[in-house]
């Protein structure tokens, strides 16, 4: 069974990924129209979609993509500037190619889509003059074109050059040592030097101070043609130098073969095609035959054979490297792996418990060794699941662009910390909440250019998406430099709706948190984008569902920052197992500051509801009382000091048991509304334990103190 489906399905998947890349390149080009990497990237994406689509006879898709690609050939060649209009049109084309891809699933193209193809094609054709159409009329750009121009190979990307180098006869006399040039070329990449000595006369005739040697050099480098030419800078006036690209890393050239011997010789101008044809017709070994007929020397044949082998090897290596460094794995498979590792962790905990109970030294040693191995497997499986937040962030570039256009606003999006990695599942869960927050920021936060100018702000607003690590969490921030939230208005609305009373015991943060209440909106008019009061409660619920929390900071006319704190991974947590009554609870280790015997801690505050923790007055929560656990209190209760963003509280439990590593399972219906519990685990001996929602407990405890 093919895990990745049929070849056509694989093509669709890859084409969709390429369309994502195309969109990113287009967005980048809009910011920096001269960005050559993005121009090349956009071209390559189109080129690959077209080329691969061709293999499946997807004529509609190939035909349309070809026209768009032809325009990008002009852009790449510097014949067409990147304009806002071209980006607009190209983004539409990108969406349309996506539609055409979807249409390949049913195999039919409805008339509306066909008409759209036609209209967009007409628009693109306007960017093409007759000459360009002719140039790109072939199938696949560069690979069919003649000797490439200098500018085509200036950018990165591996190319193999054939350099024919004949030093001037007096090069020894002038101090231009050809071996130094060979040495310099070798520093640029992989090299094959084929020296020719056929011009060296015999001892009687030689002028020993003259140079008779020449070389054909095959150089594979990503340094670009200019770097190659620079090597010859001091001899270019005297030596004969010919540089040709004979091979380049083109995604469509999958085969590892190369030109035939005769073709290489014709390419080099060492034989004319007519002679080649006459030799080929006698159906013998071509090399021997050409030498026998006196068309070329043995040295020339050997050199051509070396070129053939060299390029074949380079291609084969490239293919091997490409196939061996990455493989595609379905996310579901990775999920399954992480789950199994989780089960493995649980099972090990059981084994360790039995080993402990039996008090068998060997058994315990084996269990300990196993723990080390499991930790490595666990870390690796989690690592496999991590992806950079760039994947998430870059998807919003188009949204910001289109939305600001719809709302007649000017917004620039800045991305920071895009290399920060998060669990793929966390990323997926964040997609919608972030989308909603960004929409709100543009719709309600960032002002129109006119209003901004009146306020003395630049007409273009800035929306910043950033990510950074903070302990075992990642913080994602959405920052805008817009109007900020009107805290007083939110407070009034809260009072009107009876969510809060009119007393002044609510902090600004308390009031701001009201925007996450269901149906809460201060907007008089709902827009197409936001303002209906639907969404922010869902945003908070989604974020809390992945163990995250959300905070707001805002300042009038300066802007708003929404900070989302989420765990690095959802899969497995390291926790401290504690007991209250007969029940067991797990506290995430990443939140724990210190564990203390309660009797060693001095209480503070009027009602004795605070503790003096190393000079800091910190509220505490007796979990036995909080969860309503019956029975006598422990003789020596323990205090676990936890902190979220520097906000500390103490949690009082009956006893602390051990560190425990576990997979968190979601709670059933019975527990889902219990505040302070975020999940459950099954211990090695089959007993359940509840995962404490530390974030919530910190909030509840500190709120209580305020009251």
């Amino acid at each position, binding site marked *: 069974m093919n895990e990745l489906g049929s070849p056509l399905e694989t093509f669709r998947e890859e084409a969709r990924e390429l369309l994502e890349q195309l969109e990113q390149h287009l967005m980048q080009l809009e910011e920096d129209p001269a960005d050559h990497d993005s121009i090349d990237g956009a071209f390559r994406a189109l080129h690959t979609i077209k080329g691969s689509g061709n293999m499946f006879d997807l004529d509609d898709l190939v035909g349309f993509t070809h026209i768009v690609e032809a325009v990008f050939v002009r852009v790449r060649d510097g014949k067409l500037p990147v304009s806002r209009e071209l980006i607009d049109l190209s983004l539409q084309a990108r969406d349309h190619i996506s539609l055409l891809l979807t249409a390949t699933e049913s195999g039919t193209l409805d008339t509306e889509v066909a008409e759209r193809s036609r209209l967009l094609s007409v628009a693109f054709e306007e960017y093409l003059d007759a000459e360009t159409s002719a140039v790109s009329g072939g199938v696949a750009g560069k690979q069919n074109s003649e000797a490439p121009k200098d500018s085509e190979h200036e950018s990165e990307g591996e190319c193999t050059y054939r350099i024919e180098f004949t030093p001037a006869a007096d090069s020894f006399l002038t101090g231009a040592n050809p071996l130094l040039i060979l040495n310099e070329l070798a520093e640029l990449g992989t090299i094959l030097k084929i020296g020719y000595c056929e011009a*060296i006369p015999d001892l009687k005739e030689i002028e020993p101070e003259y140079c008779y040697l020449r070389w054909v050099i095959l150089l594979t480098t990503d340094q670009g043609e200019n770097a190659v030419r620079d090597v010859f800078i001091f001899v270019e006036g005297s030596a004969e130098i010919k540089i040709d690209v004979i091979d380049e890393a083109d995604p469509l050239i999958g085969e590892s073969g190369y030109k035939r011997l005769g073709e290489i010789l014709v390419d080099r101008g060492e034989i004319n095609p007519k002679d080649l044809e006459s030799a080929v017709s006698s159906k013998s070994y071509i090399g021997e035959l050409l030498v026998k007929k006196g068309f070329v020397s043995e040295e020339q044949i050997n050199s051509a054979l070396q070129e053939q082998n060299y390029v074949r090897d380079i291609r084969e290596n490239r293919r091997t490297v490409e196939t061996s460094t990455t493989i595609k794995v379905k996310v579901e498979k990775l999920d399954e792996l992480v789950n199994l590792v989780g089960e493995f962790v649980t099972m090990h905990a059981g084994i360790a418990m039995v080993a402990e109970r039996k008090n068998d030294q060997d058994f315990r040693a084996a269990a300990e060794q196993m723990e080390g191995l499991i930790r490595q497997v666990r870390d690796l499986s989690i690592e496999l699941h991590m992806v950079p937040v760039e994947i998430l962030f870059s998807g919003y570039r188009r949204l910001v662009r289109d939305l600001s256009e719809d709302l007649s606003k000017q917004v620039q999006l800045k991305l920071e910390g895009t290399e920060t990695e998060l669990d793929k599942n966390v990323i997926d869960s964040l997609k919608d909440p972030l989308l909603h927050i960004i929409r709100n920021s543009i719709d309600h936060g960032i002002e129109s250019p006119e209003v901004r100018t009146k306020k003395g702000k630049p007409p273009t607003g800035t929306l910043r998406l950033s990510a950074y690590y903070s302990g075992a969490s990642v913080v994602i921030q959405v920052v805008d430099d817009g109007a900020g939230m009107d805290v007083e208005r939110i407070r009034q609305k809260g009072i009107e709706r009876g969510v809060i009373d009119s007393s002044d015991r609510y902090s600004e943060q308390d009031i701001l948190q009201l925007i996450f209440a269901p149906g809460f909106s201060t907007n008089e008019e709902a827009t197409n984008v936001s303002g209906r009061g639907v969404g922010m409660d869902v945003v908070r619920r989604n974020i809390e569902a992945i163990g995250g929390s959300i905070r707001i900071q805002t300042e009038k006319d300066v802007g708003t920052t929404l900070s989302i704190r989420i765990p690095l991974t959802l899969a497995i947590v390291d926790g401290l197992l504690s007991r209250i009554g007969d029940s067991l609870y797990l506290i995430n280790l990443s939140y724990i500051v210190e564990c203390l015997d309660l009797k060693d801690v001095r209480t503070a505050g009027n009602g004795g509801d605070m503790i003096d923790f190393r000079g800091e007055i910190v509220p505490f929560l007796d979990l036995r009382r909080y969860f309503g656990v019956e029975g006598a209190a422990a003789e020596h209760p323990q205090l676990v000091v936890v902190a979220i963003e520097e906000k500390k509280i103490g949690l009082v439990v009956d006893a602390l048991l051990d560190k425990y590593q576990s997979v968190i399972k979601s709670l059933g219906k019975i527990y889902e509304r219990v505040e302070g519990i975020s999940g459950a685990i099954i211990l090695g001996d089959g007993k359940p334990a509840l995962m404490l929602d530390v974030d919530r407990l910190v909030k509840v405890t500190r709120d209580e103190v305020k009251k």
Partner: protein
Amino acid sequence: MMRTEFDTTKKPAQLDIEGEMSFATVSDLHAALLTACDEVEELVVSLDKVTGIDAAGLQLLFAVCRYAEKSKKTVRVVPGAAAERIDRILEFSGLTAPVCLAGDIAQ
């Protein structure tokens, strides 16, 4: 820098080259080789004491071998202790060793 010693008492006659075979010495070396080739019918050119060789020196070796191929005389170039050095420069230049450059002086 470079010295040659031509010993006709040996059979075959032997031209020992000592020092560098480089652009700076190829003119003198060329003259010595021509003299030796003219004087005897059978010649061994020993590179045993060669301490360095560049492209101009290498070229001259090819010219000797070419002469050996063309003329009716027997000329052999024996690298001796310089074999590794000569191999290195041949490899670096992408050239194949000429036919007459082979074997040991004892052969």
